């Protein structure tokens, strides 16, 4: 190794180090403003995933929140205060979720946290949030445990959960296709919870479970399971397969043309996951909380607002993930306004039991934030692939809708134990 080469390398190394140092010093200029008063902005921490498995849904979720916030800011903010946001990637990893929540609360002084797709991340965030009394909106994680045994006083859950969707789908399918059901279940908590809810309903409506095929997380090839399904020959397959596993399953079912026989019950198909895919990837029936093609007043304007705000986004129309992010954030801001203060307990009380008019939420029924579980009880739509689309975005056909009381997750009423108000630290954001 010659001397001159060493010098050049050392130089390169120290240049890189200097660059690192500059980055070091930059954002560390600390400005913790404690000044009370109405000019201080309200800070919301956005905890959506920007990398990992749910990066794409996380981006959509975030667009929803930002649209609600920019609309509020355009009207002069909340309580006369502007709303500011900080976003840090939670990487679809629970451990990162904890750290991001800690940072947003203790360093960025965020009084509110919004955003989740994965239930693991949502749990990590909500534990930190509960310890600090910071209100946390779980916008898009549909695990039944979120509003069941892992519920918290500060956490509010905005998506429908596996039980809600199963309730909307099972009876319809048994009536239409027959009672012999095979369960295809992802072998982890969410899958098992959803399958359990489905089993109960199958019993209730006189169906019979032929078999349950467990799918380990990370499965990319479903051919063995699909052969097994053919050998078992059920009337209906009830699938609780999520994430990337589901995407692979969809493609392989489509290739085999098995999407219509047997009949399939799927869990929720998140819009960012299916947008732009060939239509035969959407097989069977599945639940959703909202669709841009719903024939309700306000939907058209909502879509237009989305298109004006996000002209460059490849997803040309908003979907259920965006919708949940938007609605959750908008309702939070409205609750702050109603409370007349940024005291967390006052705002929690405003949210609990709050009834949201159907027209405001562009759904068929009024929705309510359940005071016992903190889950939004809302209309659940049963959808399938659209065989006569108006354009290439028009992928869903809405079959029926179920009102909130018909699809209510009763089990969560017993399993959710919220902390008392006294055990929740109180502060003004």
């Amino acid at each position, binding site marked *: 190794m010659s001397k001159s080469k060493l010098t050049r390398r050392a130089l390169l190394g120290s240049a890189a180090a200097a660059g690192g140092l500059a980055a070091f010093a930059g954002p560390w200029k600390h400005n913790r403003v404690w000044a009370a008063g109405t000019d201080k902005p309200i800070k919301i921490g956005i905890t959506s995933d920007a990398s990992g498995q749910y990066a794409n849904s996380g981006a959509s979720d975030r667009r929803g929140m930002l649209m609600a916030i920019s609309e509020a800011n355009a009207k002069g903010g909340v309580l006369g205060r502007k709303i500011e946001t900080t976003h840090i990637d939670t990487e679809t990893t629970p451990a990162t979720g904890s750290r991001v929540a800690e940072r947003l609360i203790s360093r960025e002084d965020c009084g509110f946290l919004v955003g989740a797709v994965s239930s693991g991340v949502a749990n990590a965030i909500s534990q930190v949030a509960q310890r600090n009394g910071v209100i946390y909106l779980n916008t898009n994680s549909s695990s039944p445990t979120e509003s069941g045994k892992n519920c918290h006083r500060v956490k509010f859950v905005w998506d429908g959960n596996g039980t809600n969707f199963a309730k909307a789908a099972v009876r319809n399918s048994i009536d239409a296709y027959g009672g012999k059901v095979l369960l295809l279940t992802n072998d982890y908590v969410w899958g098992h919870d959803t399958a359990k809810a489905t089993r109960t309903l199958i019993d209730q409506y006189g169906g019979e479970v032929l078999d349950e095929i467990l*799918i380990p*997380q990370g499965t990319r090839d479903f051919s*063995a399971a699909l*052969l*097994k399904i053919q050998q078992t020959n059920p009337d209906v397959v009830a699938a609780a397969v999520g994430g990337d596993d589901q995407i*692979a399953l969809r*493609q392989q079912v489509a290739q085999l043309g098995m999407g219509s026989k047997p009949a399939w019950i799927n869990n929720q198909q998140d819009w960012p996951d*299916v947008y732009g895919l060939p239509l035969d*990837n959407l097989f069977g029936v599945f639940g959703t909380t909202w669709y841009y093609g719903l024939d309700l007043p306000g939907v058209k304007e909502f879509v237009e607002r989305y298109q004006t705000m996000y002209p460059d986004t490849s997803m040309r129309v908003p979907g259920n993930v965006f919708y949940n992010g938007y609605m959750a954030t908008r309702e939070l801001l409205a609750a702050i306004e109603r409370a007349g203060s940024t005291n967390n307990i006052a705002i929690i009380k405003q949210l609990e039991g709050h009834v949201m008019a159907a027209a405001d939420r562009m759904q068929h029924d009024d929705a309510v934030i359940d005071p016992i579980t903190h889950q939004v009880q809302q209309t659940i739509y049963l959808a399938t692939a659209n065989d006569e689309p108006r354009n290439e975005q028009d992928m869903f056909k809405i079959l029926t809708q179920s009102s909130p009381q018909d699809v209510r997750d009763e089990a969560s009423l017993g399993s959710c134990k919220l902390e008392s108000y006294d055990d929740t630290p109180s502060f003004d954001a």
Partner: protein
Amino acid sequence: MMELVPHIINGLTLGLLFALIALGFTLIVGVMEVINLAHGSLFALGAYFALATLGGGWFGSTEFGVWWLSLPIGMRYVFALVVGPLLAAGAGMIIELCLRPTYGKAPLYGLLLTFGAALVVEELIRLIWGTGEQSLTVPQAINGAFLMGGLIFSKYKFFAAGFALLAIGGVWFFLERTPYGAIIKAGSHDSEMVRALGYDLSKLRLLVFGFGASLAGLAGIILTPIWGLRPHVGLDVVIPAFLIIVIGGVGSFWGAVLAAVLVGLSVGITGAYAPAWSMMSMYLLLIAIVGVRSRGLLGRKSALEN
């Protein structure tokens, strides 16, 4: 017993696909003794390049782009099958250039560099093509399903398995029956000798890495219609490839093929009878085989053991 037959057939096709996935990886490990953790990213990259070629994403709505899209899909698909791997080879060659300072050091450094490269490639894919799920349309002739023994099988799966067989045969022919193959193999055994005979070793390494990368890209294009395509799809590739070369024995071409078929069979059969254990079966197979034969099925001594 008759019930088992379709699962064995399915396991065999799966095994061939696993072999296709591991082919480029085992080539680079065998010849260059570099564990290429960017293999998965190159796999994804090849598929994304093919996607852009097939859908005319490169040309936008220019006149050429419109003309291109008016061509029959079969023709565009074949073209994409060539262009995707070639571009992936280009990316692979850039990685090889970055790898040069690590030659002669512990194999760990090559592994680490390619790990970093994998992060970079994945993020670049995210920046260029977005985070969303994409799908690759294939010609009608190889799409759809057919009936065999009363059961539905995917036509594409068999096309893919056949393609994997061709690729395995092609690589074998190249390594064993052409003078280039002889030089490459010599390079892996005795780089001094190759240099002494007047061959440019760095050019050889560049080409081998490019070749391995193009095989990764090719596997990506073939597997996309089955697995789907997203920026982090590469993660699903590296682990099976890894397991396969270790079970087969580092540096052994036929060992890797044999291991891939074994892994395919074990995943396919547990997938039918103990599905909850189908993913785990790969690891248990590894622990069982490597526990008994420390160099894998057909492995020989390698610098990577140090």
